[in-house]
C-alpha cells in the first residue's frame, strides 16, 4: 500500500480550505480522544475512592480492589462472561465466515440477496425484543423436550451462548464480507485453473487472505458478547450471571466502586493483551 505521506508535492494545487485541514484533523483527534477518555479517567479515579457511592469522592483507598478479590459473585460473573464470550466468538466466527464466503461465491441472483437481507435481520431487532423472543422460544423448546423425552433442560450458560451467537453471526458475516469484497477474485480463479478443487482453494487462498477480517470479526463478536446484557438477562438462569447482569442488578443499590476497580483491571488486561500481540508480531 502506498502511504499518503509519500505524496509528491510538485503538482499540488492548494484550495482555500486546504491549509486548515491538517491542524483541524489534529484538533479533532485531540478532542475525540479527550472525549473518549474523560469518563474512563473518572472510572479509574473512582476505583480508588473510599466512598461507597461511585459518584462521591471519599479519599484515596485500595479497599475496593481488595474487596474485588474476595467477592465470589463478581468472580463467577466474570468467569461466566469470559466463557460465554469465548464460545460465542468461536461459533459465530465459524458460521459467520461460512455465510460470508458462501454468499460471495453465489454472488448473483435473487436468492442471494434474500439470504443477504435475512442475514442482517438479527442486527435490526431491538435487543429487548430479541431477548424476550428467545426466552419464549426456549421455553417452547423445553416444554416440547419435556413432553417427548421427559427431560427438561434449564436456562443457563448454554442458552446465553445460543442467544449471543444469534446476533454475533450477522456482525461477523458483515465484517468478513467487507474483507472478501476487496479481495482479488482472479487469485481464486487462477488456483482453480491450476486444478485445485473448491475446498483447497478455500483453505489455501481464500482463508489466508481474509484471515485478518475473520479475526477482526471474531474480536467484534467477543467484545459485543462481553458487554451484552439485555438479551443475556432474559436467557440466563441460576449461576449463569454475567458481568453486565451483575452490574445492572447492582444499580438498584448504587454501583459500588468495586465495579470501577474491575473495569480498570479489564482495561489494563486488554492493553496488556494488545501489547503482547504487538511484541509477538515484531518477533517474526
Amino acid at each position, binding site marked *: 500500500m502506498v502511504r499518503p505521506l509519500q*505524496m509528491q508535492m510538485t503538482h499540488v494545487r492548494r484550495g482555500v480550505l486546504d491549509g486548515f485541514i491538517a491542524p483541524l484533523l489534529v484538533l479533532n*483527534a485531540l478532542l475525540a480522544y479527550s472525549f473518549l477518555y474523560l469518563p474512563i479517567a473518572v472510572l479509574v479515579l473512582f476505583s480508588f475512592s473510599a466512598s461507597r457511592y461511585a459518584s462521591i469522592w471519599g479519599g484515596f483507598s485500595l479497599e475496593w480492589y481488595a474487596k474485588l478479590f474476595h467477592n465470589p459473585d463478581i468472580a463467577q460473573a466474570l468467569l461466566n462472561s469470559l466463557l460465554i464470550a469465548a464460545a460465542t466468538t468461536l461459533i459465530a466466527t465459524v458460521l459467520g465466515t461460512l455465510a460470508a464466503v*458462501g454468499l460471495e461465491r453465489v454472488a448473483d441472483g435473487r436468492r442471494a440477496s434474500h439470504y443477504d437481507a435475512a442475514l442482517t435481520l438479527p442486527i435490526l431487532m431491538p435487543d429487548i425484543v430479541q431477548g424476550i423472543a428467545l426466552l419464549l422460544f426456549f421455553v417452547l423448546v423445553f416444554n416440547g423436550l419435556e413432553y417427548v423425552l421427559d427431560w427438561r433442560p434449564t436456562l443457563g450458560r448454554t442458552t446465553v451462548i445460543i*442467544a449471543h451467537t444469534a446476533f454475533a453471526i450477522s456482525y461477523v458475516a458483515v465484517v468478513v464480507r467487507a474483507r472478501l469484497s476487496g479481495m482479488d477474485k482472479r487469485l481464486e480463479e487462477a488456483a482453480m485453473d491450476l486444478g485445485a478443487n473448491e475446498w483447497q482453494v478455500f483453505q489455501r487462498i481464500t482463508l489466508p487472505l481474509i484471515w485478518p477480517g475473520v479475526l477482526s470479526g471474531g474480536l467484534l463478536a467477543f467484545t459485543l458478547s462481553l458487554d451484552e446484557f439485555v438479551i443475556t438477562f432474559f436467557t440466563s438462569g441460576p449461576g449463569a450471571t454475567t458481568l453486565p447482569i451483575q452490574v445492572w442488578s447492582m444499580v438498584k443499590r448504587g454501583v459500588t466502586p468495586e465495579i470501577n476497580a474491575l473495569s480498570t483491571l*479489564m482495561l489494563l488486561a*486488554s492493553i496488556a493483551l494488545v501489547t503482547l500481540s504487538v511484541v509477538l508480531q515484531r518477533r517474526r
Partner: protein
Amino acid sequence: MAIWCLIPPAVWLGLFAFLPLGIIIVISLTERGSPLAWQFTLSTYARLADPLLLTVVERSLWMACATTALCLVIGYPLAYFIVQQRARVRTWLYFLTLLPLWANSLVLTYAWMVLLRVDGMADQGARLLGWLGTHESLNWLYTPGAVIVGMVYWYLPFMVYPIYGSLEKFDWRLFEAAQDLGATRVAAFFKVLLPLTWPGVLAGSLLVFIPAVGNFVVPQFLGGAKAALIGNVIQERFLSQPQDWPLGSALALVVMLVISLAIWAYFKFARAGDAVG
C-alpha cells in the same frame, strides 16, 4: 461448495433468530392479558395509530440520526488522522479508539453522570475558569443534550471501526492522481476518497443508527427518565405493570420496519450521490 457453506448458518439463524421473530409476530396478533390471552386480534395494530406513540418514535429517530451524524463528523476525520500515522502509532491509536468498548457501558454511563451532574467535574471546571459562580450550575445532566453525548460516546468506536477498515484498503495513489489533475485536497476528498470509502461509512452508520434507535439505558440514566424513547416504551410494555406484550411486539416490529426503510432510503441516496462510484 457454496451451498455447503450457506446451510449451517442458515439453520442456526433460522432456529434462533427467525423462529423467535415468528413468535413475536404471533404475539403482536394476540390479545393482551397477563401476559397474554390467547385470542387472535388485529386491534393491537389499530392501537399503534396513536399520536403520542408517533411522537415517541419520531423523537427516537431524530436522536438516532443526530447521534449517527455526530459520530460520522467526529469519526471519519479521526479515522483519517489515524491512517495517516506511521504503522506502530497507527495500531496504538486504533486500539485506543476501540478500548472503551471493553469497559462496561453502564459504568461508563455512570461516569458521564459524575462528570455532568450538579457540582460534578464539568461544573467545577467551569467555576475554575470563572464562567460560573460557586453556587451556579451548568445543569447539563438530565437534558436531551446529555442523552446525545451519552449515545455518541457509546457508539463512536462502532463508526470508526469500519471506516478505518475502508481507509486502510484505500489506494492512496488515486488521491494523489486527483491532485495531480488539479483538484484541491478538499475536492479530492469529496470526489475520490469519500465515494470509495462509502462502504465503510455505510457500515459505520448502520452500526450506530440501528442500536441507537432502540437504546433505553442512556435516556433513562443521562436523560433522567424524563423523555421516553421507543426503547423505554417497549421495555415498559413488556415488563412493567400493566403488561402489554402485544403492543410491545407490534412496536418492535414497526421499529424494525422503519429501520429497514431508512436503510433502503440510505442505499438509494448513496447510489444517487455516488457519481464516481
